[in-house]
Each structure stands twice: as C-alpha cells, then as structure tokens.
C-alpha cells in the first residue's frame, strides 16, 4: 500500500522534527565529556547527578515549585467560584468579565513581568517573590477558570436543586454535590496550571533578583556562562517530570479532555 507508506513517512518526519530534539537533549546530557555534543563523548550519568549539586539550581527549583503549586492553588481558590458564577448565574456584564479573566493568556508575559516590576515592585516595595507569585497566579487563573468551567458545563444544574430540596443549604449543595463531581476537572486545571507556571519564562524575566530566580531563568543564565551538558541533563529531567505528571493525569483522569 503506497499510500500507507507515504502517510507513515509524513508522520515519522513530523515526529522526528518535533520529538527528535528532545531525544538529543537526553543523550547530550548523558555525555561523559565536559562539553555539549551529540553524539556524546562516551556515556555517563555524571551530568544528571551534577545537576543536583548546583546550589542555584536547588534554590530556583524550590522557588519554581512554590510558584507553580502556590500560584495554581491560589488561582483555583479564586478561579473556581468565578467559573461557577460564569456558568450558573446570569451575571451583569458577563462578556466583559470573561474578557478580563481571559486577558492574561493574550497579553504577552514579558510585558506583564515588566509592568509588575515597574509599578508594583519598585514603587510599592513589593518583594520580587511576591510579584512573581501574583504574576504566576494571574497567568494560571484563565486556565483554571476555563478548565473548571468546562467540567461545570458537563454537570447538570438540577442536581444542585435536588440537593437543596433534600435539605442542603447553598454551600452544602456546592461542597457535597458540585465539588465531588468536578474534582477531576479541578485536578486537571491544577496540572495544566502547574506545567504552565513551572515552564514559564517571559513573565519571570524581569522579575528576578539576587538569589530569587525561577528555574528556567536560572538555566538561561547558566547557559550564558558555561557550555557543559548539565543544562541538557536538567532540561531532560524537567521534561521527564512534566511528562510524568501529565502521563499519570491522562491515565487517571483522561486529562486531554480538558486541555
């Protein structure tokens, strides 16, 4: 079947282009030599282990983790009620509110980072960490609202009324009936937010100070100084982390429904 072969070739070529570089990164990090090369000069795990020894990587990893987890959780705390209101109530000015809430997806991150630095951090003496936290929360918020809205829309509205008629007050109806049924949507929003925040660069570009850098920014800075395979090793490790989380999410929740 010539057609099948042609189609296989097209798919293979595209995948080679999209995934190939990632495979090269993995192997470049496995190098036994001291400079970045592919194919690597011999194989060793030393660069993968060396990554853990770099103090600044450890610090920035902790910061990035804090931003990704804390920012996403905060975004969910204010995003879930917002999604609920947008889906269930006939709010005045709904369209404007939707645009406001979606804005962080459209406005380029570098602009946000710069604006926060110049008008919050400097004049109001916010710490860089606080500014980063606010920026990452804002960045993740639209995803939280969108994903949770999608799962609310799949949920019938009458089950809440049924809960009320069986004796629930509004808050109980939400916690006992709505929340358990949108749990996977919330988890999906968390994962999407986590990955988005953790990999985010432009927002954090201006928002860094001595000892306060997110991991991707730290990697960029490291690359400018040294040309050894540790960044490759770290990149590969981070990629595995993201893929692992998403893979588990996909297997348990059918994550891709929400993205």
């Amino acid at each position: 079947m010539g057609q099948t072969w042609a189609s296989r070739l097209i798919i293979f070529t595209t995948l080679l282009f999209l995934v190939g570089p990632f495979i090269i990164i993995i192997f470049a990090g496995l190098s036994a030599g001291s400079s970045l090369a592919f194919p690597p000069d011999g194989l060793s795990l030393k660069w993968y282990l060396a990554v853990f020894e770099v103090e600044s990587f450890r610090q920035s990893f902790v910061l990035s983790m804090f931003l990704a987890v804390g920012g996403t959780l905060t975004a969910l705390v204010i995003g879930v009620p917002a999604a609920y209101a947008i889906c269930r109530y006939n709010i005045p000015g709904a369209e404007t509110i939707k645009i406001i809430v979606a804005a962080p997806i459209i406005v380029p991150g570098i602009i946000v980072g710069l604006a926060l630095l110049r008008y919050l951090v400097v004049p109001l003496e916010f710490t860089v960490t606080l500014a980063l936290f606010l920026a990452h929360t804002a960045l993740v918020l639209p995803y939280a609202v969108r994903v949770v809205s999608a799962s609310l829309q799949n949920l019938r509205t009458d089950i809440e009324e049924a809960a009320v008629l069986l004796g629930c007050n509004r808050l109980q109806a939400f916690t006992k009936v709505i929340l358990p049924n949108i749990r996977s949507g919330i988890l999906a929003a968390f994962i999407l937010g986590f990955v988005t925040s953790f990999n985010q660069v432009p927002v954090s570009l201006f928002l860094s100070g001595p000892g306060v850098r997110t991991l991707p920014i730290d990697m960029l800075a490291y690359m400018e100084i040294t040309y050894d395979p540790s960044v490759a090793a770290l990149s590969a490790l981070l990629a595995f982390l993201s893929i692992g989380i998403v893979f588990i999410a996909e297997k348990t929740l059918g994550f891709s429904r929400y993205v």
Partner: protein
Amino acid sequence: MSNIAVSLQNLTLAYGDTIAVPSLNLDIIDGELIALLGPSGCGKTTTMRAIAGLMKPRSGTILIDGKDVTKTPANKRGVGLVFQSYALFPHLTGFENVAFGLRLKKRPNDEIVQRVEAGLELVGLSHLATRKPSELSGGQQQRLSLARSLVMEPKVLLLDEPLSNLDARLRLDMRTELQALQRQTGITMVFVTHDQSEALALADRIVLMKNGHIEQIGSPEALYDSPQTVFAADFVGFENIFSVGLNTQNEGTTIYNNTGELTLPYQANVSHLAWRPGGVVVGSGPHKGVVTGMAFAGDKREYVITTSAGKIKADVDVSVPAIQIGEDVFFDLPESSARMLDDKATQTQFKHG
C-alpha cells in the same frame, strides 16, 4: 371537607419582566394525585418550581399544610421533587443517593440504613443499591429518584414530566407503579405534564393551564367529556372545532372556521361546536366533501375530508370499506356527538367568512 395540602393564593410568578403566571389560585387536596397539564410555556413547571421553593414568587402566598411557606427556603419546606431527568448525584451509589437527605438530617445510622432499604424496596431497586446512577437504566434511575424523595417523607411530592423520558412500554409500567405508590404511601403528589393521555390516565384531578391561567379543573372524566373552553376541547382531542354564527333564521345553525362555513340542520345557542374525529359520520349525511387524506390506524381509518369549511378529521371503523383519496363523500356532524361550548372569550379566534 377534605384537608388542603397545598394552597396557592394570588400567586404571581415572573422571570425578570416576563410574567409567567399572573395571580393563580389553586387548592390541592391532601392525598390526591393531581396533574398540572398544559402545553409548554403555560406556566405549569414554573408553578411547580414555586411550590418547591426553587423560584421566588413576585407576589401571593403559598400555604403547605396550612402554614405560610412563601418565604421558607427550599431546603426547609419539606417538599420532594422528582426531576424530569432525575438529577441523581453521579458520584454516589444508589444507596447513598437515597441516604443523602437523611444523612444531612444527621439521623442515626441504623435508622438511615433501615429507611433507605425500605425506600429501595418500595421501588424495587434493593438489588441495585451499590450501583452508580450511570450504571442504571432510565426507568431504574427514575425509581431511584422517587425513592430518594420518598424516604424524606415529604408533605408533597412534585414530579416533573415523570413519564416523558421513558420508552412506551416502561411508561405504562411506571404509570401503574406511580398510582400504586401513591395509594400505598398516601402522599400528595403533583405532577406536571404536557401529555393529556398521561394526565387522564394517572391523575385524580387535572388542572389544565394556558398562559399562566387555569383553564379548567376537574376529574379526568369531566375534562375528557365536558371540556368547557375551545382550548380545553382542542387539548382533549376535539379536533374539529367551529364557531357558531349568529343565525337569524330558525331552521339551522351556520358554523364556520378560518376557511369556510357549513349549515347544520339543528339549532345551537352556544359560541362553538366541536367534534372528535370519531364523532363525525362518514358515508351519509347532508354535507359533501372530498377525501384528501387517509391513514390506516389498526382498528380504524383516519380520513381527512376537505369541505366548504376547510379540512375535517373523521375516524371510521376498519370494518367499513376504505374510501379512496379523491372520492366524494357525504358526511354528517351530528348533534348527538357535538360538544357545545359557550366560550365567549375565544369568539375572536376564527375570522368570519
């Protein structure tokens, strides 16, 4: 005199600026099975939601068991509602769905187990208690939803289109089952439907609604045999309805509809005359028409006869030889099968001439 379970007094319901129900008055008797019947948009569902407390009335009063509950929130009214698509909680098992309300009331566990099991047994679902709603058929979901409301021992049980989501055979079973449940528990049940046959078969009393008004209240027999208005007659199957013209001669009556008129050989001092298709005599009579449609319906043939007063529907027993489309026929609109309606309000429905 029987006790009044629910009393609606001057109830006005509105969505924003749109008044759905203007000033409704209705008493529902304790222990009866009553149907709110009407086409979509007649205000029947809105009325039911107001009784449940899911909708705030614009004005008026709702009494349940003699107590004013107009301002009582829905979760404290003690009213049960079986939703049209059941509204079961997808994350809970059958058992937990039924136990939901009892758990909220913090009843002791023994009592919950005992009451839930009794409830499941009542609807014949004991063997499916551990299943999630998504693993149940439509009929089972409906019975689970019933059990969930019944275990709360509501003062009134409301049912929103209880048979509409079931297939034809289940519908018959459920009809019988609902009636049996009602006799067994003695709970006052109010159900909403747009299907006249459902209301006629199930209810003790039917409230026929139109545009937020009550058009007629009565037993199924009364509604079926003696509709009081053109709307009611049309709704219970009097498909041939004519206005009665003012007739100066005393020999007969001129009846007309949008397209034309006929003169009947007898007198009728009412505003409208109506016949069911089965009440029209085909094959003999003083009027002539052309058969323009025929459908075989098992025990009868349903004809459409085009006459000087438009199309008339007539059912003829299948034992009578078929009349072909295009043939001329004589027919009669006999006085004996005519429903005489004095519905001055609907006079303007048909244009003269």
